[in-house]
């Protein structure tokens, strides 16, 4: 049996999404910037995708700018704001548990003369609003707090953060790459200025993302050149990718509530059964304020990669920490930030569910995982019966 439980790393493309993309991988190859008919269909397709995404965010289409992925959107929002406002101030506030696309962009800016405050989080992964308020200085130009965490699924109080940002007239960016497709976001009510999203997390293609940029917010470009994306993001558009993103976004928000309920039930079943079956286990992330598809557990005395390997051998695809860094064995910065010791952080497992996940798959994992943990514990010098 093959069970993919790594939907937060990436998702398969839905058949309807691929179908929408296919014309643009075959006959409809024109460049949208071209005047001729070959290009016109491409232009329409990009406009349509922009409308589809705008609708899901209750935004105006001209607030949506396509990028080459979530990381580019994050880098653009952060560096673009920093460079645009550097004469106003050089202080940025973010959190200790951001995705590396945000963290490393901030660290880069630190080397370039900016100051960055990394807000700590509590044991559930939540930032404190008081910490945030205290961190804001007269030269703070940007607050960047992720909507939901990719490792532990914790959902931040984005609306409250946004209100604080507004009060202090500081721009607010949120990395919603994991939240988008799961949570409703209404930009007419949500006080956010920039939102990063990425197609491949919601059954769209890899290599395409977008930045929502509230009307009137001016940041520098990250990629200069041709006049695409209203001169804010140059480069011949990835039409097929953009069309797929639009379709995927539309599908995700057709009935996001049912999606949420179904996944939440499966998630809780998986989590509860595993925690019952395996002693010395803790749940990472907030018990309630968490993504409907995220289970993150730490099993004491064992190490994550050997668990992943063992799971892989029985056909289960999972992740320990974030997929982006699992090539290295450095313990996840997120797990350390919620207070886990290095040893325990190393023994963490992330199982993320998706639209194709079935109860049967959950049951299979619940059957397979406990003996794997036991076998590795039996081999571990840290484990004493």
């Amino acid at each position, binding site marked *: 049996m093959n069970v993919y439980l790594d939907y937060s790393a990436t998702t398969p493309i839905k058949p309807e999404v691929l179908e929408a993309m296919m014309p643009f991988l075959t006959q409809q190859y024109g460049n949208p910037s071209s005047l001729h008919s070959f290009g016109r269909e491409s232009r329409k397709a990009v406009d349509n995708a922009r409308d589809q995404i705008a609708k899901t965010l209750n935004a105006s289409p001209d607030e949506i700018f396509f990028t080459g992925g979530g990381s580019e959107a994050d880098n653009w929002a952060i560096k673009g704001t920093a460079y645009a406002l550097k004469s106003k101030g050089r202080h940025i506030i973010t959190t200790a548990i951001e995705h590396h696309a945000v963290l490393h962009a901030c660290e880069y800016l630190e080397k370039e003369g900016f100051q960055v405050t990394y807000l700590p989080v509590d044991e559930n992964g939540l930032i404190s609003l008081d910490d945030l308020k205290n961190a804001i200085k007269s030269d703070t130009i940007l607050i960047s707090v992720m909507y939901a965490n990719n490792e532990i699924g914790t959902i931040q109080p984005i609306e409250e953060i946004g209100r604080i940002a507004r009060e202090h007239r500081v721009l607010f960016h949120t990395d919603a790459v994991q939240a988008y497709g799961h949570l409703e976001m209404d930009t007419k009510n949500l006080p956010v200025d920039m939102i990063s999203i990425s197609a491949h997390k919601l059954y769209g293609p890899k290599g395409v993302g977008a930045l929502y940029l509230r009307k009137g917010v001016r940041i520098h470009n990250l990629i200069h050149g041709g006049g695409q994306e209203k001169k804010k993001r140059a480069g011949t558009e990835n039409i097929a990718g953009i069309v797929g993103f639009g379709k995927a976004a539309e599908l995700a928000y057709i009935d996001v509530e049912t999606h949420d309920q179904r996944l939440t039930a499966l998630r809780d079943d998986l989590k509860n059964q595993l925690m019952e079956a395996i002693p010395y286990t803790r749940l990472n992330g907030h018990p309630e304020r968490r993504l409907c598809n995220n289970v993150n557990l730490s099993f004491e005395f064992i190490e994550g*990669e*050997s668990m992943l*390997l063992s799971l892989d*051998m029985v056909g289960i695809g999972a992740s320990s920490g974030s997929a982006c860094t699992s090539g290295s064995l450095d313990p996840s910065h997120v797990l350390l930030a919620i207070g886990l010791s290095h040893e325990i952080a190393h023994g963490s497992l992330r199982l993320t569910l998706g639209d194709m996940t079935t109860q049967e798959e959950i049951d299979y994992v619940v059957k397979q995982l406990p003996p794997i943990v036991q076998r590795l514990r*039996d*081999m571990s*010098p*840290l484990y004493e019966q």
Partner: protein
Amino acid sequence: MMYSEKVMDHFTNPRNVGEIADADAIGQVGNPKCGDIMKMYFKIENDVIVDVKFKTFGCGSAIASSSMATELIKGKTIDEALALSNRAVADALDGLPPAKMHCSVLAEEAIKSAMFDFAQRHKRDFEGLKGYQPPTGDEDHHDHGEEE
């Protein structure tokens, strides 16, 4: 991360897992902070390793390296065991990914650490331990082999 079949075999069916209650020598290296600890137990008769067991907290290649290393030195003399390089362990496993070479280093070091323990207990000197410095916990913080 693509492991050879040999690595997967030794990871799935590790040889010599366990402890030896009345071991003649014990070596432990690694650091739980780094996500890897390797502990080896030896029975030694007439400078020959008659039995060896290990316990490892670590990644797949650390477990496979422990298994392979213990296989390679079982029945060998202390001098032969001390001559075992991490590359020989890796080679016997049909290679390890570059970022995982240090896991085989742990195996080499666990053996050295145990032989040092044996040398100390019996006030012996071994050619292969010349200049050997036992690891001191926290300092043994290895580079995880990430590329820049």
